[in-house]
């Protein structure tokens, strides 16, 4: 069953087109990473899914309903970002108590466990927390709410490396015990790559790629060799990234299947083959310099 489906989703703010004709579905109980450079439209897309914003055109369905101003979606979904505001008069422990009243599946034991682990003070006020502590507290709300649809928009803002690692570990362990649909946005893939099932790549308001993470890693390879050899070999290939190495050498990133064909024909003589890290590939695929992104879409 699809938890989210979007058909031709477009969002404009005045003359700015933030999202352009996006079509996709997200299946139940999968962890999806929404990856894209700053200004790609990640937050806008998530806020439309959450029902905070209304699409300019196209169709959006969350739990088979239009999410905008929808109580069913609001009760079954939680949206966590660093802009979350809570009543200033409530202490952190009072916020937990009121969240417990709102979310049907709320797990107070988990909330308190994480609360203690991260040494949060129950009598503290949310607006007095540091940036990293705010993110940590918001993360606890997001996990303990156990919503069938859980959305984290750049959840680790301000967290130190240790807390980030703990957060992703906590997310995975809680997901293993209580599978649910989770979307995490980030401009960095490498820190979330392992716990994701799917990746959704967005840039300039358009969907670039939606694929299982395991396929992404095998999608492209890099070749390094003498420039004239590389140039000749890859003349007809779609090149995702290219750079010079020293004076005479060249480094190119192309599709793995294309590279295998080429190497079969040309032999490996003088050519070195490297894997391409998934997060590097994301950067290449979302940068504007190299055109010809269409082959990525044609794959599905």
């Amino acid at each position: 069953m699809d938890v989210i489906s979007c058909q031709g989703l477009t969002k404009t703010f005045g003359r700015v087109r933030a999202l352009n004709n996006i079509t996709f579905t997200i299946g139940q109980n999968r962890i999806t990473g929404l990856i894209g450079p700053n200004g790609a439209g990640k937050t806008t897309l998530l806020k439309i899914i959450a029902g905070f914003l209304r699409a300019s055109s196209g169709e959006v369905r969350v739990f088979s309903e239009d999410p905008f101003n929808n109580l069913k979606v609001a009760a079954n979904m939680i949206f966590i970002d660093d802009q979350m505001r809570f009543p200033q008069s409530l202490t952190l422990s009072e916020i937990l108590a009121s969240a417990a009243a709102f979310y049907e599946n709320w797990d107070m034991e988990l909330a308190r466990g994480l609360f203690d682990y991260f040494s949060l003070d129950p009598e503290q006020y949310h607006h007095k927390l540091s940036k990293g502590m705010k993110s940590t507290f918001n993360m606890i709300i997001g996990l303990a709410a156990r919503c069938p649809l859980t959305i984290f928009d750049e959840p680790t803002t301000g967290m130190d490396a240790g807390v980030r690692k703990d957060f992703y570990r906590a997310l995975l362990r809680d997901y293993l015990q209580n599978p649910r649909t989770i979307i995490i946005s980030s401009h960095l893939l490498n820190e979330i790559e392992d716990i994701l099932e799917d990746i959704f790549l967005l840039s300039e308001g358009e969907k670039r790629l939606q694929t299982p993470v395991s396929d992404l890693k095998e999608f492209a390879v890099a070749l390094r060799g003498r420039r004239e050899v590389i140039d000749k070999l890859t003349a007809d290939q779609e090149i995702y990234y290219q750079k010079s190495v020293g004076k005479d050498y060249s480094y190119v990133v192309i599709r793995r299947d294309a590279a295998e064909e080429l190497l079969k024909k040309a032999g490996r003589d003088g050519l070195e083959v490297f894997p391409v890290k998934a997060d590097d590939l994301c950067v290449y695929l979302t940068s504007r310099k190299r055109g010809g992104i269409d082959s990525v879409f044609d794959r599905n």
Partner: protein
Amino acid sequence: MELNAVEGKPIYVQIAEWLEEEILRGHIKEHEKIYSQYQLAEMFNINPATAAKGINILADQGILYKKRGLGMFLSPEAKEKIRDKRKNHTLKKLVEEVVFEAQLLGVTEAELISMIRDAGKEFDEHDEHEGIEGG
């Protein structure tokens, strides 16, 4: 074991290889249930779908078999199959790379063979207590 994210090998391939090594070392017995995708996900901090993909590679090769509703079990031919596969693919490839490097450096065949012998001696000393069942 820590998974190597930098190396090009996809995580699910690393999972399959780790399981193979567990089997070769005799840590999993014939007809014994192997780790579930959820156990592997927790052990290696990865998505359970990725872990399942690693398990499925071994199932497709007949190293594991499925009992409906119960999980994956080790088939009696598992060790033999892994040994065959690794010898004819992994080891062969590694040898090719060694030979390639040796030729590049101008190392003679005799020199190379003596290097392999020396390396073998070192391993024997290290592995005496490991109890890897040889083929």
